[in-house]
């Protein structure tokens, strides 16, 4: 794998809290963060990759309603027993983010995996959107 030379900047990694008031009020008394996400497209699929530290395959929920894909990640804070927090630079909370999908996604075949606190969604493109190679027949 190629050597990583670039320096990771702390200001580029700060957690951003959900501030939207349009959402229904939450029943969990906890902060909610917007996970940072990358979206990229290949010939067959669209990938959404989201940073959700503290989340695994059992604590992530993906909902698809009409064309809106919503990711919910529930984090149980891991508090070391008999220790008290003496210095804090980050807070732990749940994650929530929604994406509007185009009609060109094959909504029945979306796949999701979680590894090292990163959620990876594969959204297969529906038939017509795929780049198709048209074979030219001899006349």
């Amino acid at each position: 794998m190629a050597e990583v030379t670039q320096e990771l900047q702390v200001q580029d990694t700060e957690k951003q809290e959900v501030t939207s008031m349009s959402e229904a009020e939450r029943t969990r008394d906890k902060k909610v963060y917007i996970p940072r996400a990358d979206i990229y497209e290949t010939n067959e699929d669209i990938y959404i990759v989201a940073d959700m530290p503290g989340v695994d395959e059992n604590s992530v929920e993906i909902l698809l309603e009409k064309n809106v894909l919503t990711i919910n990640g529930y984090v149980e804070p891991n508090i070391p027993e008999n220790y008290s927090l003496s210095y804090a630079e980050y807070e732990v909370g749940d994650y929530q983010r929604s994406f509007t999908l185009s009609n060109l996604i094959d909504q029945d075949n979306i796949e999701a995996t979680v590894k090292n606190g990163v959620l990876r969604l594969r959204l297969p493109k529906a038939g017509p959107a795929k780049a198709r190679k048209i074979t030219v027949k001899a006349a």
Partner: protein
Amino acid sequence: MYRGMFDRYGARGPWREMERFQREMERLLSNMAEPRLHRPASYPAMNVWTNNEGVVVTAELPGVEPEDIDISVVNDTLTVSGARRPDELKQGEKYHRRERNFGRFTRTFQLPFRVDADKVEAVFDKGVLQISLPRAEADKPRKIAIKAG
């Protein structure tokens, strides 16, 4: 007596004092509710948990492979370094949105006391690193027995 008080602070004096007192109380109460967040000196942000026996340091490192994390401890200084690697796109694949950042990182942290480097343990689970650092025996507070004279 009343007269003296009003003279000193002006007609609204006592109320102003009350308001100041109220603001002060609110400030104290809000500080008690949650510890103030400090700005990290560099990536990653760290939380430090302590008791008399040792210290536990946690950091969120989503997408970092455990084998890419290096941890070293010298006396009371902890160093965590590593790299977060980007996804490598193939020819013809393109990004629509890039919010996740990549690169190397090194964080050096001064612990509240000296630790026993041989007993340091680290766990990496769900993208969260947790390092347990037991306090060095020689550094622990000792109870001094008083001998009868």
